[in-house]
């Protein structure tokens, strides 16, 4: 399993120091578990821990209260060292009702701690969950440390003096649970209390109720005999700087805003809501003071169409969606590619095919991103590898789009989108200048010796065509989807010209390979196995590789942020290994691209259950192909 390291370390009396711990909050959709997890995460972030989170909630519609289908869970991994996954197995499971217990128990590590809200373990809820007997009596909880807490009663009990109805009082029980865990792991209380003030300020009664519940939970931890130990997880040693806790979708939205500032162009987002991408639209819509224009279109085709229109008008244009939306945008992306205007398409991938598993994560849109258009219509494709990296990749996608006048696809996924991590804020002034010039002058002389503007006269280096926006006198021109004559851009049915233009469009995209960071090997370069990753598999791969190195095994890895075109040196890098392993949350898409391009016998590692890889799974896969050895080394260790 990942991130292993000595765990407990009794420091005399008082709280026991832990290197890391994985806590999972689970309850009914109505119990506010996502919020509880969020708060615990923020407090831990502020306490300086490194962390990673994994929110999991049911598909879009509210499932029947109390049933397994209705369970909502939030897993958070906090540590005093650099971690990369939300943890393979929780050490602590908070179960607010029987359904949560039933559906989540198998994830808890044996010997782990269980905290149950016993008030919800009545006949009705047990049956709803599908229990025939009470698990607390029939021994199904043997092997775990179980703490039974009547959270609802205790919460309601804490309310006197506050005027809230009993039903409302009960709704604060998640803060009671948060109080217990916050005490157990010695979290600072202020951040949570402050947050309650901000969030519910308008409603004093609610503020009071939630604070009371939180305090009661905290006090319960301190006083109740049943919770013997208090723990703490020290701050992780991190580079100096200001940190914030960020999810992938927010990072993406902020990256879009940053890109617009760095490009000195207003940002335009044309989008149609879809899970799990909608939050990017929501976040961006809050920041109109950055000159951002957000447009909720009538469908995905209008969304990408409006973005193309805005790009023609000289804005930095984006469209955000998920797989089903990309499947609809193909024709318009093809037009954008043909008229060579900059645009960024962001695909927050989810479980497919068709409607599939809308709230679950997957990375199965790669082939569509590269090939999902008719004709020869190459576009660059990049992918983010962590929640905070979404910020960087939104800027990078914009840089490529603007510099090469091409639509660029940015791939993220549901795990990155909703997952959170501490992010060391970049120095704003150190961010790259990605601005480009609009054409303002004629650029050629025609047969009659007149100064003219040829919209398809390319930059000799980038092969990008000039971007002349409406409002510029003298550069009036018409673009369109019919084949254009090289240079003049007039409609052309000339056979040879079509071949020339096809090659130019391809060459322009291929050329980008030399304008992106080369593939960098993490490792000594002398292992048998190279693990090639892309996207959100990064954390699990790093965890696996680190664990193996921790026990002296050898394995190298490369992580791709640019999947089309590939970095110029990738072929050379791959050629140096006996085994190339490609973990993907799909049935093997990048691996086919690598095989076709470099004729290397790269092998896929697939996972298709709507959840990210664990480090343990990747490590197992590496060991399975007899990895873990150095090149001139005999057989596998262990």
């Amino acid at each position: 399993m990942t991130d292993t390291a000595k765990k407990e370390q009794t420091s005399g009396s008082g709280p026991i120091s832990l290197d890391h711990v994985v806590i999972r909050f689970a309850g009914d959709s109505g119990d506010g578990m996502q919020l509880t997890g969020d708060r615990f995460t923020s407090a831990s972030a502020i306490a300086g821990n490194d962390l990673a989170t994994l929110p999991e909630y049911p598909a879009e519609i509210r499932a029947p209260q109390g049933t397994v289908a209705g369970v909502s869970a939030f897993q958070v991994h906090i540590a005093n060292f650099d971690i990369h996954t939300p943890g393979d197995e929780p050490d602590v499971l908070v179960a607010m009702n029987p359904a949560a217990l039933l559906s989540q128990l198998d994830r808890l590590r044996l010997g782990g701690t269980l905290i149950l809200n016993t008030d919800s373990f009545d006949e009705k809820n047990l049956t709803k969950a599908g229990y025939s007997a009470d698990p607390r009596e029939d021994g199904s909880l043997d092997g775990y440390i179980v703490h039974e807490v009547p959270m609802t009663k205790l919460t309601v009990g804490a309310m006197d003096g506050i005027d809230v109805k009993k039903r409302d009082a009960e709704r604060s029980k998640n803060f009671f649970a948060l109080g217990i865990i916050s005490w157990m792991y010695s979290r600072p209380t202020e951040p949570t209390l402050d947050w309650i003030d901000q969030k519910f300020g308008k409603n004093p009664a609610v503020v009071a109720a939630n604070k009371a519940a939180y305090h009661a939970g905290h006090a319960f931890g301190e006083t109740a005999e049943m919770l013997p130990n208090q723990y703490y997880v020290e701050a992780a040693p991190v580079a100096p700087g200001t940190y914030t806790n960020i999810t992938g979708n927010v990072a993406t939205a902020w990256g879009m805003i940053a890109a617009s500032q760095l490009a000195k162009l207003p940002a335009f987002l044309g989008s149609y809501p879809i899970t799990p991408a909608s939050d990017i639209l929501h976040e961006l819509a809050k920041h109109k003071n950055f000159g951002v224009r957000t447009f909720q279109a009538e469908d995905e085709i209008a969304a990408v169409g409006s973005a193309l229109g805005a790009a023609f008008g000289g804005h930095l244009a984006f469209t955000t969606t998920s797989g089903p939306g990309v499947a609809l945008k193909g024709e318009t992306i093809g037009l954008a590619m043909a008229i060579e205007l900059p645009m960024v398409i962001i695909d927050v991938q989810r479980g497919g095919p068709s409607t599939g598993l809308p709230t679950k994560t997957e990375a199965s849109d790669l082939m569509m991103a590269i090939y999902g258009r008719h004709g020869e219509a190459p576009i660059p494709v990049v992918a983010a590898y962590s929640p905070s990296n979404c910020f960087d990749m939104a800027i990078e996608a914009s840089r490529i789009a603007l510099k090469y006048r091409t639509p660029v696809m940015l791939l993220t996924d549901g795990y990155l989108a909703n997952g959170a991590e501490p992010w060391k804020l970049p120095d704003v002034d150190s961010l790259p200048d990605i601005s480009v010039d609009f054409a303002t002058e004629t650029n050629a002389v025609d047969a009659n010796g007149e100064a003219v503007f040829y919209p398809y006269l390319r930059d000799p280096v980038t092969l990008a065509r000039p971007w002349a926006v409406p409002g510029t006198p003298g550069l009036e021109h018409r673009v369109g989807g019919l084949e254009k004559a090289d240079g003049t851009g007039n409609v052309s049915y000339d056979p040879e010209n079509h071949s020339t233009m096809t090659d130019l469009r391809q060459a322009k995209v291929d050329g980008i390979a030399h304008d992106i960071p080369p593939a960098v090997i993490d490792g000594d370069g002398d292992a048998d196995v190279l693990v090639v990753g892309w996207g959100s598999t990064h954390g699990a791969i790093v965890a696996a590789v680190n664990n193996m190195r921790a026990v002296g095994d050898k394995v190298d890895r490369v992580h791709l942020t640019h999947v089309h075109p590939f970095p110029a040196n990738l072929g050379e890098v791959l050629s140096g290994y006996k085994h190339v392993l490609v973990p993907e949350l799909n049935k093997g898409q990048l691996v086919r691209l690598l095989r076709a391009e470099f004729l290397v016998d790269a092998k896929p590692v697939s996972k298709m259950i709507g959840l990210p890889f664990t480090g343990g799974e990747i490590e197992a896969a590496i060991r399975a192909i007899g990895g873990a050895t150095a090149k001139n080394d005999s057989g596998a260790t262990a």
Partner: protein
Amino acid sequence: MTVESNVTLDPTQRGHWTSDQDVRWCPGCGDYGILAAMQFLHAELAAEEGNTITRENTVFVSGIGCAARFPYYMSTYGMHSIHGRAPAIATGLAVARPDLNIWVVGGDGDMLSIGGNHLIHALRRNVNMKILLFNNQIYGLTKGQYSPTSEVGKITKSTPMGSIDHPFSPLSLAAGAGASFIARTHDLDRKHMIEVFRRANAHNGSSLVEIYQNCNVFNDGAFDQITKRSARENMFIELVHGEPIRFGPEGSKGVTLDRGVARVVDVADSGIDALLVHDETNPNPAVAFALSELAQDRQSPTVFGVLRAAERQDFGQAINDQVLAANAAKGPGDLYSLLRSGATWEGGE
């Protein structure tokens, strides 16, 4: 895409608005007349006091179809996009650039078949664009299949036994979608086109202009019974704002509303006071709708001119107002503070 030669540097000349591309419509196509009207309109506007319209701040966006070739022939900015998507693309452009003068051009297939949804949404939002619907009741570019405006029973390549779809009345559909400006003209009368285009151009928000256009190759004479000189007297009704609606020999006929339904009457019988007085500014679209439905029986005469011209906020402007309001309220965005808008902490020492 040359800059026009000196002769045409004078914006009051049609040539100033003409691109250097050969026009590629069939000889005799109604599209030629529409193109000429548009070029002349711009020349006329240029001659007007305080005109601000120039080649560089004018954009023609089209989809695909014969009509959609239009942008290539104007010396302005233009985009010949993909089938049906012009209103969506123009919406993005209008939101990004409320300063531009945006025209959208397409055929009945482009705008009402594949592009129907984008059209009705642009109209309901009142996005600042002037939409020209070239209605020739046929798919011209693909060589003659029936369209959403073709009459029932139409025999075409795709309907050898006759079409069975009830056609759209584009202006009724527009009224149903909440369009703020609705008008109709036809390719045989340049003056009429120029006046209607001028009104569309002056309107703030979306304006929809249906143009009866003859496809002399695949649907020749589709509108002869209405727009041919000989037919006009009895089948062509010109709407005049503030005037009772009259037509026919010496205005002997008129239009009344009979329990909400528009009907043709003999003024002699009905008397003038019974006639409907046309009010294009009526905030309620019911009357415009009733007028549009008059000809649905395919015998009654057809109304031309401006059916509706109501004021409503323009979408692109509204979005930009929100941007300004946000700036006023929060001050111009600052990246440094955005990154710190959530809870932050200092790491390391």
